[in-house]
């Protein structure tokens, strides 16, 4: 049971070390740039320090937490729940592209209808009605009342 948790710690520590290394590289790159300004810290000095601390944190996390990972318990999450979360993320990402293509109103109708379905509203008719009503309400509140200007999309633009 400890193995998956150990793996998680290795991934987390590696991520921090890699991000820290990226920070150090960016800091060095910036400090090599010529500048007329007097700046004791330099444009990259601050990032250099952050990158270094992040790398050290990753290493510390691995050293301190790897050994005690055995006592942690793995949470039980069913496939259905994972699919629900993944579905929501896919919808959110897909919505971004759909807004750019078809405009906010069309995209929000599709988004809300599908999101209600994934959240657990079973009937497709109910989903579509809820999707239409939600999109209309958002349009009235945010576009008409609060003057938020949404994209019209390539299709209607």
């Amino acid at each position, binding site marked *: 049971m400890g193995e998956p948790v150990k793996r*998680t710690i290795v991934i*987390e520590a590696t991520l*921090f070390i890699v*991000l820290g290394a990226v*920070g150090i590289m*960016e800091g060095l790159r*910036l400090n090599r*740039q010529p*500048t007329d*300004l*007097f*700046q*004791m*810290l330099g*444009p*990259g000095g*601050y*990032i250099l320090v*952050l*990158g270094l*601390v*992040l790398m050290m*944190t990753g290493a*510390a*996390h691995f050293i*301190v*937490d790897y*050994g*005690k990972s*055995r*006592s942690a318990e793995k949470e039980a*999450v069913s496939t259905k*729940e*994972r699919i*629900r*979360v993944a579905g*929501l*993320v896919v919808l*959110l*990402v897909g*919505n*971004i592209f759909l*807004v*750019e293509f078809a405009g906010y109103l069309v995209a*929000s109708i599709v988004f*809300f209808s599908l*999101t*209600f379905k994934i*959240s*657990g*509203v079973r009937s497709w008719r109910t989903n579509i009605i*809820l999707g239409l009503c*939600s999109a209309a309400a*958002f349009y009235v509140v*945010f576009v008409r009342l*609060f003057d*938020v*200007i*949404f*994209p019209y999309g390539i299709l209607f633009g």
Partner: protein
Amino acid sequence: MDLINGIIHVFSPALLLYCFLGCLLGTLVGVLPGLGPAATMAILLPVTMNLKNPAGAIIMMAGIYYGAAYGGSTTSILTNIPGETSSVPTCFDGFPMTKQGRAGEALWIAAVGSFIAGTVGCILLSIIGPGFAKFAISFGPPEYFGLLLFSMTTLISLSGESPIKGLGVGILGMMLATIGTDPVSGVFRFDFGLVNLTRGIDLIPVAVGLFGIGEILMSSEAGMTKIYEGKLGKMMPRGKELRKGIWACLRGTALGFPLGMLPGMTPPVASFMAYDLEKKISKYPEKFGTGVIEGVAGPEAANNANAQAGFVPLMAFGIPTGPSPALMLAALMIYGLQPGPMLFITKKDFAWTIIGSMYVGNVMLLILNLPLVGFWARISTVPYKYLAPLILGVCGVAAYAARNTMFDVGIAVGAGVLGYLMKKAHWPIAPVILGFILGPMLEVSLSQSLNMGGPVIFLSRPIAMVFFILAIIIVFLSIRFLKRKVAKEILNEETDL
């Protein structure tokens, strides 16, 4: 006199409306799990930019912040589902009181305790805030750097179960804030050749993603439902129960307010400490968890007093003590109002109007929470499957409205996934936002200090040195705590073997 003028100013129709809206939204946010005050404030930030009334916008945001502290108790007591993290201890005795048919008493003492704590908190804020501001006038870049370093150190040490995790995510937040343009030289940093990244990453999509979208993803996975159980019963406790409750409120206030002025000591910390305190000093600690009124009154008062106290360092120094005050800071800066000691001098009327609005807001919240408790209870029965898509929609709009670009919606979704993964892995989220906000301030103050006289400038500034020493003490205590924790776990493992 300034305070009285501030309160009088709040009694204009527009400001009263904003105060009411903030309190109403705050209570609603508190009642509904899945959306905390930080996410709501992040969502409303771009919307309030259209209001053209800075005082109204800030009053509304403040109302959301301390209103959520009131509202979180309702679902904790009625359904055993805390509306806010700070309301978790309220579940321990509040829900058992509901099962005993005493929900009304629990709700009453939670609301009245919150009112007492909020009012006392306002009074103390009125007295202490300007005093701190006068002290802060003497601060220069070295002192600010010292204070910010101390704040970050404390926040990181107090976040979650591991200071290492807190440090890691805090530094991550600080690095995210460096994306875009260097504040001194103007060179592009971490842009990777992308035009969108040269503008930097805005706070709102990050906050909305981490706190809003991330929370919805977690709640969707958990398959949250709402159930209202139990009858309200009589509303007001009587006799000995009332006395015990009121005393617990006063103790909670005395504990919560000083804690609230310290970075990292957010309302959840105060409410847990207050519950612990009530249990320790009680003559019958074994009864805690079975429906003891002090177990509701103490934590609720502490979390409200704590919320009010957070405005002291925010307005006096411009230093937020938690994610919600950090968003208040962002709101003030959006309106060109630099929080800090000069706020009480150059924008005196504005500062006292905000403080005055808190007095008025506390009265409004008492009215909203007591007579309307049945209404809030019904709201909490709305199934989550209908709320989650709407909240996601609002998050998307908020992220977009910050700079009118879908790129920010992408940032919010990315931050949401990150927030979800962090919660799954039990990593604290608050340090990311705080690092994001405090990081640039830290960088600028460090750069200015070094340009003033190099690293030795800090040695000639006693206030800065005091903050450095305090930060070192905090780090030392964290390492010591960590060593003890690791040693204890090794010992447990050896015993098991």
